[in-house]
């Protein structure tokens, strides 16, 4: 005991010493910006007065703004001046393919992709950006809530969106820039013909679905959590109320017990969820081989590699004689491309984002070997996958809950605790 007390006492006494070595985030961006000064356009260059010209806190932000107005050729020229390697942290492993083709097109650049786990992405970026550590220059990442609240709002990530594409990417996905969407859909095992199609999401709140709705535990999967929280937004609350009406044949009227219709849905839906599987592949295989009538929510692309699943499972959105399930058919989440606040290669980053938004770059995802992934650039047509199951992005956007950073920022905390107490 005594020994430990001494150790702890020492620990506290010297804590101030240890503190000296720590990074100071408030002054973070400056040193990195200085590095870049040689590449930056002279400030005087911006004399053609533009009344939209915003003010910038850092050189990088300014550089990115200027870059957004350049053509790919101009960017390439600028990027050639950046000697350091560009490191891209990515939660999607197919980014490696995009980097490969990017380098084939722009051979003078050096860029490398690092696969980083979804949860680790935030810890890593918030630790390294602005610190002395030389980590990522840009990131491809998901989870609108944490991207906005932990990184963008803390000035650790800067947005870049090319001026030229303003018409083809929906405005809501320009800041932060989304490059693609991934869908997770509701599937039902129809291996037995007597199983009826899902007609309404409220069916999933019935007791007969107890433990039969397979879903990755949202506490372990943030995009799943975001989806549940989005249900409480006005838009989806309304859709849920409408579905409620058509399912139960009466208007929702339980405000005594629940804050809104969505809250009631969450309460009853979560009570039926089954978190046995810790990965989407497991859910897919599991319900495909499992009991007829089991329901699962998982990444669409899993169907590609699983013949049994294609055979036994029905996509709820396309069932019910093509009318699909009422309420929602699944959810989608964007993958964002963001530039780190301390990058020393802003032009390369910008060029790479341009590339990701182009048809060529998007081909890493938009190809016949992949499905359930949709490009944010709406001018690019979906390349149908070999199974022929996939549909255009608009089809899904109408039926799936999609993350909205602003709504999440305002309501996350409250709804999270409501949900957390129901998944423990």
């Amino acid at each position, binding site marked *: 005991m005594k020994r430990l007390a001494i*150790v702890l006492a020492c620990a506290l006494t010297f*804590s101030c010493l*240890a503190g000296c070595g720590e990074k100071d985030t408030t002054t973070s961006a400056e040193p990195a910006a200085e590095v870049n000064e040689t590449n930056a356009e002279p400030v005087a260059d911006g004399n053609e007065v533009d009344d939209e010209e915003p003010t910038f806190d850092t050189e990088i932000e300014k550089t990115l703004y200027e870059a957004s107005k350049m053509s790919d050729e101009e960017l390439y020229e600028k990027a050639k001046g950046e000697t350091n390697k560009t490191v891209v942290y990515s939660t999607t492993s197919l980014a490696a393919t995009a980097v490969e083709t990017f380098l084939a097109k722009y051979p003078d650049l050096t860029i490398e992709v690092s696969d980083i786990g979804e949860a680790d992405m935030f810890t890593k970026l918030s630790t390294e950006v602005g610190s002395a550590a030389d980590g990522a220059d840009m990131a491809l990442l998901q989870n609108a809530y944490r991207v906005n609240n932990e990184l963008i709002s803390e000035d650790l990530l800067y947005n870049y969106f090319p001026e030229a594409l303003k018409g083809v990417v929906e405005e809501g996905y320009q800041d932060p820039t989304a490059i693609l969407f991934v869908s997770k859909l509701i599937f039902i095992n129809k291996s037995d013909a007597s199983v009826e199609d899902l007609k309404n999401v409220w069916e999933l709140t019935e007791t007969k679905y107890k433990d039969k709705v397979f879903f990755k535990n949202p506490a372990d999967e943030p995009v799943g959590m975001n989806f549940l929280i989005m249900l409480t937004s006005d838009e989806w609350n309304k859709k849920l109320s409408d579905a409620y009406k058509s399912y139960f044949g009466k208007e929702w009227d339980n405000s005594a017990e629940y804050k809104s219709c969505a809250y009631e849905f969450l309460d009853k839906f979560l009570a039926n969820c089954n978190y046995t599987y810790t*990965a989407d592949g497991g*859910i897919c295989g599991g319900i495909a081989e499992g009991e007829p009538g089991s329901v699962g929510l998982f990444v669409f692309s899993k169907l590609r590699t699983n*013949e*049994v699943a294609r055979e036994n499972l029905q996509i709820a959105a396309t069932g019910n004689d093509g009318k699909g399930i009422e309420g929602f058919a699944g959810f989608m989440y964007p993958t964002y491309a963001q530039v780190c606040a301390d990058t020393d290669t802003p032009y390369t980053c910008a060029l790479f984002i341009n590339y990701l938004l182009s048809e060529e770059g998007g081909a890493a995802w938009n190809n016949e070997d992949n499905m359930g992934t949709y490009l944010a650039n709406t001018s690019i047509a979906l390349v149908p996958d070999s199974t022929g199951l996939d549909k255009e992005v608009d089809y899904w956007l109408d039926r799936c809950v999609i993350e909205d950073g602003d709504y999440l920022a305002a309501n996350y905390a409250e709804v999270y605790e409501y949900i957390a107490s129901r998944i423990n």
Partner: protein
Amino acid sequence: MKAINLEKIKNRIKTYFSNPANCMLVFFFCVFLGLSIYPITAMIKEMFVVHAGIEKTLITAKKGSFTLYHVQKLFIPSEWSVTSFYIPFKNSFLLGLFGAILAIIFGGVTAWLMTRSNLVHKKIIGTLFMFPYLMPAWTLAQFWIYLFQNSNVMSGNKGIMQSLFGICMPQWFVYGLFPCVIVNSLHFAPFAYILIGGILQNMDATLEESAQILKANRLRIVRKVTLPIVMPALLSTFLLVFSSGFASYAVPVFLGGAVRFYTLASKMKAMINAGYMGQAYIIAAVMILCGIIILMINQKYTNKRRSFTTVTGKSGQVSLVNLKKANRPISIAMIILTVCFSVVPLIVFALQTIQRVPGDYSVSNWTLDFWIGKDLDAYKMGMVGGILVGQDFLMALLRLVLLSLACSAFAGTAGLFIGYSVVRNRRTRLSKMVEAMSFFPYLIPTIAFAAIYLALASTKTFSFLYNSFALLVLVGGVKYLPFASRGCINSMLQVSSEIEEAAILMNVPWYKRIFRILVPIQKTSIFSGYLLPIVSAMREVDLFALIVANSRYMLTTMLLAFNQTGYDQYASAITLLIIVIVLVINQVSSKLTGASISQSVGSYNKQ
């Protein structure tokens, strides 16, 4: 007068530091002080500040400002604190407790059978019994599910027991506390077996014989003599297994998720996922605190005045208890049981890697694509094809092996010097402190440990380490240092100081004394000290995930990525390979040098 005193002090300091063992001790004291202070201060800070994200919104304060919110939220009784802290705490506690008790029963009975009875086929049982310890605990958890899942519970998928024998176990048997306890105890039973077996083997048989001559029956001998004497080993096994169970993460994730069974560690991870950093760090602190308490209980018990030093008597020929007719049945039962949890999981994992559609065991579904297939568009995961095709996988394998070797070289060598300096300064306060502090890294939950070192590497001073191999080595080395230093302290204790003193008189420099005299004498046990870090690093997943620059960097982090995305075949193939490599390393080293895991674990109790 004053001048003389100063001179005296100066000379004293000079004399003190002229002994290299003292220099090392002071050095390690400073290093350990840093290694404990840095994490402690970092964690204390995190516990009381507002972080970006959800906390900012909840507390409506600026990032970085001081708050008591986390502490209040987590501890003041409410629905939130009950589900986020009190229940996980209870679960962790029960898991640790029952896991440790069962591990001791499994391991203890086996140890007794192996050392004190004439059981047949001891060799094969002894070898197989070690397997579960060499396998990562979560592979057993996964195996448990493959074995017992059935159409009555949760997923409704058929497991091996149902498919083959039609046996359906109830839900509590398949998911939740019970299987977690069983899997943890299976994983740690070999640990208990080695510790207790070591004591039984070293224990002077005459202690039991004299009781027998004094007309005590078997039961009384076990109760009054054997048990009290092995008690310290039992206790330290209990506490080690308890603390491992208490902090276990992967096993509850696999076996508990389905029934919402959370432990402190899995809760902490969920907190981090949601951005509740402050509360996550408080949970980590609670886990460390519990670890320290356990460590202190352990030390208190082993420092009792009824010293348990076991003088090995000359009667090495212990009279073995004749199991008579029970011998063969017990032996066969043991073999079946050990095979079930050693060879069978390997076969199951091997089968998983050749299934085109996971879970379908029919021959028509078999394929070697995941091993040697090329251009598998359908399975694209950034992989060119099967894991044996292309460089990615082989490089990751190579890096993992390199890292394990480097971690072990780091931990083992540091452990060697710690062992030397601690033993040569035996009974000084400083040496006791260094010995106690060397255990600290073991107590920090893996996820917090990684985060703390990541932050350390992002500071100016250490930024050169960021995303580097050296950081991985440092983190692994420090994390496994407790194993290595404990082992080295014990092996150094066994060399009498006269041996070194003889060399001192002949003016042999200290490093030569260590490497030419002490190390050769104790080479087997020191090599064993290197082996445990190798094996631990080989199967460690969570520790390195955050620190590697790229999840495809190493085999284990690759495995984690495959697990998350659900590419079961790749994941199983990697798991299988890791287990096989660990087994091979253990076998080869025990053949070549006589050092094996059983020995490195065994060196834990010789104090």
